């Protein structure tokens, strides 16, 4: 396949200012502002070619992200951002594909696509702004709402066992899994960076408070609100006895166990492992097929097929 592109001109440095688009329509104080801010900052560090950054999303408050980032962007339908982004990623290895969304978008209507995108290990970075509630539709129970949470659809308190995002992700086969908190900018940035550097399906769950409909939800993880922001102590493989107790991020069973900790749990990288990406696997199939057909042209290939049908 041929590509018509324009030769590169000397590039302006990507700054937060350049990356800023529309002013966010979020409520003042919404946790998502910080997630956006961290994204700008991280993009400043990476300095990808501006045109190669793609920001995609489903539907929700958090999913409005693409309007606020001045990159190529797509605001898709509710719950299907992962397959949409998969199309972009698989067709275009030159792009940096980012997906943003909420807990409803990702774990409720989109829960299956998340699992299948993860097991296929599509190369993209997916940030889930988990606020334990449906923000955009104004306070219904979400799959992460804790039991007892009073919402418009659970006026006497939620009764369904919430999902455990980390367990779900570990089981799904995602190859990079991290958990962070929107009030912890530096930690968020670190998670972003590692997710971006990871080749494969990388997911960050970011606890991001909905000040309008679930204020204070994540205070327990915020030291400034008297909570504890406990970090995963990652194994250094330095042979020291302390290292024994540290977390091996390549151990999915250990990651699963970490996910079992009591609220507010622990933050950091739960799991990280290299496994062939869907992108590589499909490129491999192409490579084999092209070798077999001896790099024949499209026309030659077609003609051969037609000849067989005579």
């Amino acid at each position: 396949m041929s590509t018509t592109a324009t030769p590169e001109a000397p590039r302006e440095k990507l700054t937060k200012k350049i990356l800023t688009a529309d002013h966010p329509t979020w409520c003042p104080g919404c946790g998502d502002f910080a997630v956006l801010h961290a994204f700008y900052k991280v993009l400043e560090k990476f300095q990808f070619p501006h045109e190669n950054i793609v920001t995609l999303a489903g539907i929700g408050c958090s999913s409005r992200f693409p309007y606020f980032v001045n990159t190529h962007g797509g605001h898709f339908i509710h719950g299907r951002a992962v397959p949409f982004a998969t199309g972009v990623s698989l067709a275009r290895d030159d792009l940096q594909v980012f997906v943003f969304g909420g807990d409803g978008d990702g774990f409720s209507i989109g829960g299956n696509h998340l699992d299948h995108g993860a097991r296929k290990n599509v190369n993209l970075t997916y940030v889930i702004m988990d606020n334990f509630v449906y923000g955009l539709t104004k306070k219904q129970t979400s799959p992460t709402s804790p039991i007892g949470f009073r919402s418009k659809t659970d006026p006497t308190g939620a009764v369904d066992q919430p999902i455990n995002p980390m367990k779900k992700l570990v089981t799904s086969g995602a190859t990079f899994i991290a958990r962070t908190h929107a009030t912890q900018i530096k930690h968020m940035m670190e998670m972003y960076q590692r997710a971006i550097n990871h080749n494969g399906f990388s997911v960050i769950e970011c606890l991001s408070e909905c000040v309008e409909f679930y204020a204070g939800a994540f205070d327990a993880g915020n030291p400034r609100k008297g909570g504890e922001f406990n970090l995963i102590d990652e194994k250094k493989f330095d042979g020291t006895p302390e290292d024994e107790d540290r977390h091996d991020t390549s151990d999915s069973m250990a990651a699963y166990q970490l996910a079992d900790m009591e609220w507010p749990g622990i933050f950091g990288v739960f799991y990280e492992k290299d496994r062939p990406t869907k992108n590589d696997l499909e490129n491999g199939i192409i490579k084999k097929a092209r070798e077999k057909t001896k790099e024949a042209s499209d026309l030659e290939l077609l003609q051969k097929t037609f000849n067989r049908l005579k």
Partner: protein
Amino acid sequence: MSESKQKKENVNDVVIRLAGNSQDGIQTIGGFLARLAGRSDQEVITYMTIPSTISGGPSIFQVRIGSGEVLSAGDSADFLLAFYQHSYEEHLSFLKEGGVLIYDTEYVKPDVDDKRFVYVGVPITGLTIEAMGGSAKDKGKNIFVLGLLARMFSLNVEKLRTLMSEKLLNKGEDVLRNVLVAFDAGYGYQVDNVLDRYYAFEPSKQVDGKSQVTMDGNQAMTLGLITAGIRYGAGYPITPWSSIMEALRSELPKYGGKFIQVEDELAAISMAIGFSYSGNLAVTGSSGPGISLKMEALGWAVMAEIPVILINVQRGGPSTGLPTSVEQSDLLQAIYGSHGDTPRVVLSPKNVEDCFYVALEAARIAKKYSTPVIILSDQALATRIEAFDEPNLEELVVDPQLNLKTRPSDYLPYSMDKITQHAPPGTIIEGGKYPVVTGLEHDEAGHPSGNPELHMKMTAKRREKLQILANEIDIPEVHGAQEGDILFVGWGSTYGPLREAVLGNTKFAKKLGHLHIRHLHPLPNGLETIFSKFRQIFVVEMNDSGIYGYGQLATLLRARYCNSSIRSINKTDGLPFKVREILEGAKRLSGDAVSNYSAYPYE
């Protein structure tokens, strides 16, 4: 064997129905016959049924071969080959008077007192076992029969042998050798002992030097997509769509492309749209239930103006319905199935050959108008085999360009002045303001906006491009009479029987016309002129006559033209239209006026 004993009879149009169980490999014989006809510049159409149980069961394969134009698989058979008693009993009514019943004497006991037919008993099972050894009998019977038919119809044995070896080569020499043993046994059978003549096809009348290719509709569609430069797609299996996705999954990597099997149909269309958004026009498809699942995302593509091709291989509905039967009941869904005003393009191929060309047309329109295009094929087209002139690939093949040309700083993704042409990611926008594609109503720059006037304008923008497209579609030509009593209007796979009803009907040729609509949405302009030339307009469709007595295309045409002479001939029995059914329908609607149309040979 001396052929002198037998008369030779030239034939130019023969319908052979093979009836047995799906396990007997009758599809294989049928396939070889069809392919052979294609190589002999004859026209051919096949028809088959698929048993409803997974483990197989009664099944037929019908081949119609002709030296002239062959338009349908035939309303009745000249030859019936029955493997079993149930095959004989079930299908004898399909045999013409004077037709030949060939049967396996081991399993079938026909009523030879019924003098309407000619009886040719052959110990098919016994002779196959004799030739090949007992264990292989089930695998060889079909090829034995192929040999038998080769003898009866003076088929080109050399070509047949070549076909068999091409097809079976990768199964190993042994297999091929066994197959040829069975073939020779059949070919060597002294059929002249029981039949007083043999047949030979007249040389084809319209040999134009081009060679023919023989395939089914799903193959043709697949090849059309590849020729059109489609390199990406996603899908989820469902009968009878699956064979397109399976072929694309095998073929696309050779062309550097990817076809992804995903978790469901919602993911499939979402991924296809993602491919398209990335600058690579992509395809997805399904049948009935899966198409319904795609309606939301399809609406997004309409709103965001992302092109995508959606193939619907229609089957019997509603719901899971009749997975292996044919129906044309998804037309109105194709046009109106998503919420909101969602203008999108709908095309339908008229025969196997057109499955190839319609894919090219779909890709052209999708790109030019940055719009979803739905192709409505159907189960009959998908599975039937036809021979057609090899397309001029060199001329048709499209190089799939990924266009990342820098856009100027005044670039607007949804400019009011132009038909939308998106800048895929990777495209540099001068001035550095990057666009967002979105399913929210938006302004020209892609920003969400609830501005009332803007929504009016954008709704019009999305609709007007289809109006522009309508202007460029040729008015379809009318077959048969150009004015007169009755105009048959059809779409999709009813083309063959409709054309045959009109053209085959020499006695009334001056009174019957046939218009076939390939661009169903938008419709071509100017149909009213054609309609005005006929006293009655009968829309022939394989769908229900509905609450008010007319079918789905008829709904569209009546609404547009408010012409009450537009009426419907419908059926929903899951089988392709017979020519006879069409003429009977016309008679029913016309009353005495055309009662003598029944003079047509089929009644």
